[in-house]
């Protein structure tokens, strides 16, 4: 009865175009159209990735920890804010413009300030990630909560349901789709946020390592870091997709 969901993420065509780009890139390097030190070839990047693997993993662990901490606190705060705004109209009217305002603050401008306020440790990174993902999460959840079918709400009321039951049986499942869409955006923001924050102050993490190799013109190593950041982001998005599929079985077809 159930159809398999059509995957738009990975298919033969997309793999083909990636391979094509890599071949083109390798050719450019091979015929020295661009000098090595400016643009290392994909093979050189791969070699750097392998030789630096342990170092990369060490820094990745730090970045990942920051991203996960920021992500979970940002998600929790965003969902909580959405619940409160959904329940109290006045709070929504008071908070919504502030939320929009947080989205207009340039991340790069505020990151050094956070370092001054919270030091060089994990804290400023987590705060930066929270600031970046709070808006998309809370707005998406608010949208999900307010888009529930009012007739469904009335039906449950007629069955004598209380506010908590209406929230649990209707609002939560109805907004799960919005939650996962927001989470997909949030995970990529979280990784990038952590890296940017590390650029601007820190002792370890992929951002710190990236600054270091850039300053010594080791561009093959720098591309290896970029590759790793992309892989981490993709894996996290994949994880969100799996979680979505498990928790929303009714969306199968």
């Amino acid at each position, binding site marked *: 009865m159930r159809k398999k969901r059509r995957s738009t993420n990975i298919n033969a065509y997309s793999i083909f175009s990636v391979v094509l780009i890599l071949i083109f890139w390798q050719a450019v390097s091979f015929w020295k159209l661009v000098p090595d030190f400016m643009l290392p070839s994909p093979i050189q990047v791969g070699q750097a990735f392998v030789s630096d693997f342990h170092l990369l993993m060490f820094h990745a662990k730090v970045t990942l920890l920051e991203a996960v901490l920021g992500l979970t606190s940002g998600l929790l705060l965003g969902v909580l804010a959405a619940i409160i705004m959904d329940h109290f109209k006045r709070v929504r009217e008071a908070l919504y413009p502030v939320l929009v305002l947080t989205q207009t603050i340039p991340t790069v401008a505020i990151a050094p300030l956070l370092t001054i306020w919270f030091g060089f440790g994990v804290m400023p990174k987590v705060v930066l990630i929270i600031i970046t993902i709070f808006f998309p999460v809370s707005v998406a959840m608010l949208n999900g909560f307010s888009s529930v079918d009012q007739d469904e709400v009335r039906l*449950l009321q007629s*069955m004598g349901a209380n506010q908590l039951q209406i929230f649990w049986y209707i609002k939560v499942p109805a907004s799960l789709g919005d939650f996962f869409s927001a989470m997909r955006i949030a995970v990529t923001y979280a990784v990038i946020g952590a890296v940017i924050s590390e650029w601007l102050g820190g002792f370890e993490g992929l951002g710190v390592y990236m600054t270091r190799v850039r300053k010594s013109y080791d561009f093959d190593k720098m591309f290896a870091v970029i590759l790793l950041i992309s892989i981490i982001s993709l894996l996290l998005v994949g994880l969100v997709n799996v979680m979505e599929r498990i928790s929303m079985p009714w969306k199968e077809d």
Partner: protein
Amino acid sequence: MSKLEVKHISKSFEYKKILNNLNLYVEEHEIVSIVGPSGVGKSTLFNVIAGLLEPSQGNVFLDGESIINKPGHVSYMLQKDLLLPYKTIEQNVALPLMLKGEAKKKAIKKAEELLKEFGFEMVAKAYPNELSGGMRQRIALLRTYMFSANLILLDEPFSALDTFTKSEIQSWYLKVHKNLGLTTLFITHDIDEAIKLSNRVYILKGSQYDSLDNISIAKSAKNIDNFLLSDEFLDYKKKIIACLQK
């Protein structure tokens, strides 16, 4: 004592009077219809009876007790089946019990039994979007029944279905109503449907009239072969149309 008594109900929204001093009653095991054009306040009346809306005046008694502003005493079903899309069929049918505080396992078990009794065990684990419109409406009726068999309010439950499915589900409902010993108050704008299903038909015309016309459909009439094509059926229909045009 009647099962349901609606006494002197009036309801105004701002300056507009929707319901004006309405009286009606439903006896136990009856199916009573309320017919009338759109916008005369049928659904408002239902919301009052369901306890979701407070009337400006009057009272509603179920088994002699006032149920004004007390939702949760009568079962209520709308034109849309409103099966929750994120729950399986058995979870949907079990929902009223879970809302009343029954443990999930027990509620699901009762839902399974009910579904089996009606031959729907095949779809118990399916989601609503995998079912046809007629099927969903039947499941919604079972859920309504699961909530309470005391009094069932149906607000145009079949009006979105095609003619064949509609006729089939009407016959099914008559059977279910009899087998389970239900009492039903039914809103429709379909006069044929009202005559086919009900014991009595109320005609609601609007707030400028302060009484409801009430037409009884004789039990013997329903036993006539091809009742829907008979002269008796047409006579009832003429009577109702005459009332509406009065």
